[in-house]
């Protein structure tokens, strides 16, 4: 089989974007949270809630934009669990995170079973935001520049998060809350409020990531559809150490490893689907083994702040 046919390359790029974009969005959210010292282990659950909400709203309104907004909104709502229980009350972030993951998986699959298990509806394709001129480029143009408009929004959001974390006063406060909350407190900042906003922003992005996965990557919602994307986002975040360029890069590498698997299935190479499904996680483990020392987390990550303790 010729590896460089138009259809082939287009499928490769499309699969690559479908896998890497939701991960990128979720990782942006996780990055903001982790930089502020809050480990959101419930991201998997938040993504499922966001994906389900986006699916329901898009089915009802027939609009991808409303669906994505609903996903992001529900992401914010579900991150309230983490906000109230872990940030405000200082309860163990790992336990609460696991609880949110279980709740998200359980609730969405119960609701899906109740409402859609008989009809299993699917969504159409989002209306692409074609860039004049660029989308006429053969092969590459078709798959990159005709992506539904959210693709461009994602890149814009990544730039926005970079600007927020590195160029603004609030970004500095977020990083201080994760690095040394005592010094933030001493300099007149409010650790709890900073973390609260960071958690809500994280919820926004995680919900949006779930919505992207449901609406654009797969075009439907299925129970437990995230299949570890949320956890992968946590790994991406830890490897990136808060640098957005690394978040983008790592997400793209992950997407690439998924796309390679998908494309291999199209060729005559007979590889079991189990290997293909496993491949991205093997890549992550290999990266972790090779760069174990660079998987770094902010010193105050996971610790509730209480004034006067050290």
């Amino acid at each position: 089989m010729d590896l460089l046919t138009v259809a082939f390359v287009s499928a490769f790029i499309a699969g690559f974007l479908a896998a890497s974009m939701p991960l990128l969005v979720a990782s942006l959210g996780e990055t903001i949270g982790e930089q502020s010292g809050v480990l959101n282990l419930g991201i998997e659950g938040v993504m499922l809630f966001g994906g389900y909400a986006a699916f329901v709203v898009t089915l009802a309104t027939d609009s991808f934009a409303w669906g994505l907004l609903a996903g992001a909104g529900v992401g914010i709502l579900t991150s309230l669990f983490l906000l109230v229980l872990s940030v405000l009350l200082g309860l163990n972030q790992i336990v609460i995170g696991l609880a949110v993951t279980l709740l998200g998986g359980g609730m969405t699959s119960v609701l899906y079973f109740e409402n859609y298990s008989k009809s299993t509806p699917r969504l159409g394709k989002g209306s692409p935001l074609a860039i004049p001129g660029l989308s006429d480029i053969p092969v590459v143009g078709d798959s990159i520049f005709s992506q539904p408009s959210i693709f461009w929004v994602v890149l814009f959001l990544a730039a926005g998060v970079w600007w927020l974390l590195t160029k603004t006063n609030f970004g500095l406060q977020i990083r201080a809350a994760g690095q040394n909350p005592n010094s933030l407190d001493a300099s007149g900042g409010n650790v709890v409020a900073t973390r609260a906003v960071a958690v809500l922003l994280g919820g926004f992005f995680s919900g949006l990531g779930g919505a992207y996965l449901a609406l654009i990557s797969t075009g439907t919602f299925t129970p437990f559809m995230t299949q570890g994307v949320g956890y992968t986002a946590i790994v991406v975040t830890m490897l990136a150490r808060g640098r957005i360029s690394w978040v983008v890069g790592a997400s793209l590498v992950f997407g690439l490893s998924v796309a390679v698997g998908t494309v291999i299935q199209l060729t005559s190479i007979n590889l079991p689907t189990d290997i293909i499904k496993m491949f991205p996680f093997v890549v992550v483990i290999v990266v972790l083994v090779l760069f174990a020392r660079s998987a770094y987390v902010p010193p105050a990550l996971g610790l509730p702040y209480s004034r006067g303790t050290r």
Partner: protein
Amino acid sequence: MTTTETQGIEARGPENSARPASGMGRRLAIGFIRNVLPLILAIATSGILLLAMGKSPSFFYGEVIRFGLMGSGWQRSLVMLAPLLLYGAGLIVAFRGKLWNLGYEGQYLLGGVLVVGLAPYLTQSLPLVLAFAILMLLGAMAGGAWTFIPAVLKARFGTNEIVTTLMLSFVGIGITNMLIRGPFQNPDVTVPQTQVMPLDTMFPKIPGSKIHIGIIIALIVVLIVHYVLTRTSFGLRLDVYGASPKSALHVGINAPRMVIVLFLASGALIGFAAAVDMLGLWGNMRANWNPAYGSEILPFVFLARLSVLASIPFLAFYAVLATGGALASQDVGLDSHFMLVVVALILMFMSVIEYIGMKRDLGQSYLPPGLRKALASLLTRRKARNP
């Protein structure tokens, strides 16, 4: 961070978790509030959710009790309990050392698939008792081996074990499915599944019941683990390490070795649980099968305050809830994942009640300081306005 500030999942034995209380009644009341109230609140809240979905909660929970306890239900629950006890002990060993082994699903499935895939050959060529012993050892070794990479990374570089165990869990699930579709595929069927073990090569039943001897094996092993954790110097060193790795260094505990030992023991117990489950109950494995016990028993090992002995009644409660719940869900037309919701609610209520208890211990206000100040200023401002 002082130790009293950390939440209630750290290594605290059952004997020192209760506050100095005056009377027996008071101690019992506190134990009830801390350990049983979260269960009641979670069941009540999930009942409200059921109502919202137009199902009758009383009927649902009646069915749970009917299927989980009545008739032969208690025997089914006990069969389910056998692997859960070992599984829970595996989680407790790691959690006591503050190591988050969250890769339990991969460890369980890998142990299980090796046992169930090799069992047909071993049980035919070897005396049954010897075959069982080898298979159980094999399951334990597979589960333990799957924690090795996270353990070394954690011990050597301090790499966060949550991400490494989770990632390896997905890889373990993939390898399990490959083994089922590949070398262990039952040649007689096209469905991807392993050969079905003949009933007479599985664990014998306790005479006069449907319960296999796995529950006895599990109880013995779990009691040994409890003894090691509470009555030996290793158990003490583990608790010191879990309470503070830094002070463990000062009393001469080899921290990297401790991390590796705890991880291997944790994975081995989980793989052992899989072996007991396979040899006693299932006898074969289908591709993409994943019972995912681990996430669902998490709250119960926390409620047991990470005490292996105390985990027995809690896990028994879960076994009844899960056995009955699976059938009751079918009865009322509910997705069986509803149990996940109940479990998540237990975790949340448990954490909140633990928080309130901790604040009580310290004699502090139940409200976080920021909120209290805000409320106080609201009240005083109002007073100032209306003198």
